[in-house]
């Protein structure tokens, strides 16, 4: 597992440890190499590498495993959580707190002493085609209803954003790319501070919301070209058609993904430059 894959798990794990009252600066973190650990400040988080706690060692704190291989032969006075990776609890090892296994490979020898033990089973079922179709139908229904409602209540909003998409695609794409990327990186780094994690989740959800809004706009644009007189119905049908089109694009390797990405970026920027459609986008007038 790479560091970038470990980091999100570590963030979650560190949050769990913080919730237990552990200060982040008193957590020892291991992500690579071979280590023999005999003591810790308040907690030990393992994201990779190999860690051995020898039989005569006592870790006065919690142990968190999100990657790598950990062999516990000594004693842990706090809780032990296995999120991913591998944990071997050897004969003679002692866990005074609770041993929780969410995922990963856990092996507990019969001679190990564990005060409490819990396992959360995550079953991985093969995706059913009916389930995918049902999910797509539900998405289509939601965007159709939202598109129809917005067209009926405030048609000007969709029109303004739609005009930005069609008339100023380059500008919208530029703004969408730079704003979308910057905000994404900002929110991810906010998550690393732990303190700002809730705000970063809200921010990421807001980004998804802007993309969803852009989807409605595309639905509106497709609907305008359909031979349907009622605007609300046309937007609803257009939204469904657009959603299906995007889904089909996903089956085209590379080109389909690039087109999807382009649509998202242009739509994202168009929503922003028109203030969600509250005003028409007018590029600066340059004399000369």
């Amino acid at each position: 597992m790479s560091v970038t894959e470990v980091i999100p798990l570590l963030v979650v794990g560190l949050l769990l440890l913080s919730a237990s009252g552990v200060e982040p600066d008193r957590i020892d973190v291991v992500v690579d190499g071979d280590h023999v650990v005999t003591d810790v400040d308040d907690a030990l988080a393992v994201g990779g590498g190999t860690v051995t706690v020898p039989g005569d060692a006592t870790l006065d704190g919690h142990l968190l495993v999100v990657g790598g291989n950990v062999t516990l032969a000594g004693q842990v006075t706090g809780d032990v959580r296995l999120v991913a990776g591998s944990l071997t609890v050897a004969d003679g090892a002692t866990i005074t707190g609770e041993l929780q296994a969410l995922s990963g490979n856990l092996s507990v020898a019969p001679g190990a002493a564990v005060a409490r033990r819990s396992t959360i089973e995550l079953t991985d079922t093969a995706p059913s085609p009916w389930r995918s179709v049902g999910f797509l139908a539900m998405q289509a229904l939601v965007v159709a209803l939202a598109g129809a409602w917005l067209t009926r209540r405030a048609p000007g909003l969709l029109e303004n954003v739609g005009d930005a998409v069609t008339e100023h695609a380059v500008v919208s794409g530029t703004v969408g790319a730079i704003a979308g990327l910057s905000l994404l990186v900002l929110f991810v780094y906010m998550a690393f501070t732990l303190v700002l994690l809730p705000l970063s989740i809200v921010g990421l959800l807001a980004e998804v919301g802007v993309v969803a809004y852009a989807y409605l706009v595309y639905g509106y644009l497709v609907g305008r070209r359909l031979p349907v007189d009622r605007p609300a119905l046309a937007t609803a049908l257009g939204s469904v058609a657009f959603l299906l089109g995007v889904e089909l694009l996903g089956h085209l390797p590379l080109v389909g993904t690039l087109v999807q990405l382009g649509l998202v970026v242009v739509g994202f920027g168009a929503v922003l430059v028109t203030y969600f459609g509250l005003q028409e986008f007018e590029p600066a007038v340059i004399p000369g």
Partner: protein
Amino acid sequence: MRLAEHLRARDWPVVFGYLLFVVLMAAGYYYNVTFVQLGLIDLGTRHVGLSGAAVSAWMAGLALLTFGVAVAMGVAMDRRGWSRNFRTKLRILLGVVVVQFGLTVVAPTIRSVEAFGVWIVLASITLGVGFPASFSLAIDLVPVPDRGYVAAAITAVTYVAANAVPLAWSIEVFSRVMVLAMVPGILVLAALVSGRVPGLKRVVDRLATRHEEIGPGRFCRPTPVQTRSLAFAAPVVLMFGVFFIDSLGFLRIIETPALVLSSWQSPELSTRLLIAAVHAVGALMAGVLYTNFRRNGLFLWVFALFGLTYVLYTSDLRLGALFPTLAGDAPSIVNPLFYALTVSFYTTLNFALWPDLATADTIGTHSAIGIGMAGWLATFVSTAVALYLDVADVGLLTHLNLVNALALLLLFGLVVGLYARRMVGLYRGAGG
């Protein structure tokens, strides 16, 4: 774009003008960011035997002297009417390039502090004379609506060349490359200036009068921006802030092997190509934004991106300090990529802004003050501050944290300033 119209009309002299401007500016900027900024550090420390701090002090002196010479030159150009005379500007540039050619040839042979000092003084004079003359060509060669895109092209060409072509940061290598690049430049400029090549004479004749049509910049229509006005002072202060932040941060980054060897001086060509590509994309984005939005929007973007970039750098360092094993051996490539994006944004803005804040009567003064204050004086001040921080044994994290705070402060100040200006406008509109 006007360029498309000129291409359709087969107006080749005007198309040649675009090309000439991009090549001249990109070559000049490339010379500055590589030979002057990186080559002199190598020359001073390795050949002359000066300490890093001493070389930085000389570099600060170069920046200050260049600023002084540029302002004097810019004012002289406007007062004597050289700013309006295309041929005169080409002659000045030819003289500058010839002297710089000589300086570039002799640079690797310098071994004493005295010779190094003389070289610095002469280089300052050529740079100070050269950049108002070269920037003022915009009023002859680039129509106002195309200045954002042309600025983007200059930025993209320069940074792609600087990053994609693997050059060791040594004075000998830079000198060899620059000498080779300058020879055709001198020949073309000489041919243009001589007036003896019939085809080129027609081109110069056609371009010589264009300033009457395309001279007044974007922000000078209908009313020209005065040198002593808030409309000119505000962008100067903002650009000073941008250059100061960039220089203060970059001076420390290039002194940190772990940061520079994983990015700008990475042995991996793919890493440098990625940075070059981001520079090019960033420049094109900035060109689109400059052309389609008001000026302050781009300043906001620049400060926001600088703030974000340094947040990324400082977050990595904090994470590394907190969890040493988590940091690993290679710093994140995301940080220099954002840095490249930000630098492309403000460089594009810099190339387009000063001609757009000037007319044919003020281009010399405005470009000299603008670039002199923002580019050279900011470099002088930031180098002095960086030296002070170095002497005071300030750590990398604290240093970059300071730069980050400045970027965020400028972002905040700009937002508040724009909001306050709008409020004042509303108050006055309401008859207050």
